[in-house]
């Protein structure tokens, strides 16, 4: 065990934390909004809304994230009309492509989590709300979404951890976040175990903090709920 190397590489690897957190934050926030939309489309009785949502979820959940990233980053760049359009400004940036891929991915997975939460709502609650004269929008805002959030929170916590882990893939498209830096150091020093311990501990710490945060939110939201 080369402790000195571990000590030195720790200070190099922590420089990747901001990028990892930035990507996690941007893609989970954008992904969550998208997921609510996709989930609402998925449960809609209109086939023109529910079918696209179904296929979107099907394709994203059925293919590896790395392939999705390559498809967006390299695949779309093939077309001249894309390269000449304003889209190229975004698509030539690996960071944008990484965030876009992760956003779409988390949107599909979270949409299923949200759908599960929505379907667990007792029908009586919605009936009661409509018999009180609440409009569709009011029911959604005041009854359906608050209960869904509470129901879906534990599963969403797992999704957040998967997201933190998934950000490591953007290192393959040249972005130097935690895993990218760790990989560079490993191939220079040939000390895979030491670097794995350092980088792995940082990820474990981030994920531990997220788990705590979700637990805290769960307790807060379940305050006053009787099971």
């Amino acid at each position, binding site marked *: 065990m080369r402790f000195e190397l571990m000590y030195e590489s720790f200070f190099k690897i922590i420089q990747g934390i901001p990028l990892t957190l930035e990507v996690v934050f941007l893609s989970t926030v954008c992904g969550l909004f998208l997921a609510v939309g996709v989930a609402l489309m998925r449960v809609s009785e209109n086939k023109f809304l529910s079918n696209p949502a179904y296929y979107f979820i*099907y394709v994203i959940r059925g*293919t590896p*994230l*790395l392939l999705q990233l390559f498809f967006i980053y*390299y695949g779309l760049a093939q077309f001249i009309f894309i390269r000449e359009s304003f889209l190229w400004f975004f698509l030539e940036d690996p960071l944008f492509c990484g965030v876009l891929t992760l956003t779409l991915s988390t949107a599909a997975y979270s949409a299923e989590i949200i759908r599960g939460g929505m379907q667990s709502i007792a029908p009586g609650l919605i009936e009661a709300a409509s018999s009180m004269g609440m409009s569709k929008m009011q029911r959604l805002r005041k009854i359906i979404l608050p209960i869904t959030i509470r129901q879906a929170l534990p599963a969403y916590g797992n999704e957040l951890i998967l997201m933190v*882990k998934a950000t490591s893939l953007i290192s*393959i498209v040249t972005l130097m976040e935690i895993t990218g830096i760790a990989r560079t150091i490993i191939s220079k020093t040939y000390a895979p175990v030491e670097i794995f311990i350092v980088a792995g501990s940082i990820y*474990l710490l981030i994920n531990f903090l997220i788990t705590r945060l979700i637990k805290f939110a769960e307790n807060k939201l379940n305050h006053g709920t009787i099971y």
Partner: protein
Amino acid sequence: MMELITFGDTGWGDELLLSMVMTILVSTSSLAFGLLIGTIFASFKLSNSYVLKTIAEFYTTIVRGVPELLVIYLLFFGGSGAVMYMAKIFGHMGYIELSPFTIGTIAVGAISGAYSTEVIRGAILAVPKGQFEAARTLGMKKYAMSFNVIFPQVARLALPGIGNVWQVTLKDTALISVTGLVEIMRQSKIAAGSTHEPFLFYSIAIILYLFITSISYQFFNRAENKFSKGFVREGN
């Protein structure tokens, strides 16, 4: 454009098909390896030994909390070294290099093993207590009880969970492409690079993965129905 995906010397059809076989092979062997690890660590978690419990808890926490890519790098760069170190203890000197397939199977197997551990642990806990008691009352030894009474039931109860682990494992094998194993991901990257048609080949790769996931989804559904014959399912 179509001639790019024909079979033969000029097209990439046969290479892509072969890479699909490789993806299926490495996923199956990873799942099998993962199930083996999962069974061992699930029994660790359910044992009375504090040490074994801690080891199993340590393993699942680390593997589930650290990116898959990092685990693959660890084994890719450190796997051969570890094997040579072990070989030295047994008196074997010299250079040993693990094939990308072996490294991939071990890495993805170790990852899927952590998820399998939880699935199998849950399934063992879901076997009614009476089954254990009845087996013991019949005078069955520990191993006879495990193999003839408990294990068949665990297999049935764990099947839906294993189906999920399979899907995750299959997708994780795409990451082994960084070690040079020519599976779908790697092959489509090579084809995209040499033909300058990334859109086409990544689209084909998407279709190939969707094909495997859809087929295996149906396979697991059938297996579940077959295994749960004679059991009433709630909600059906």
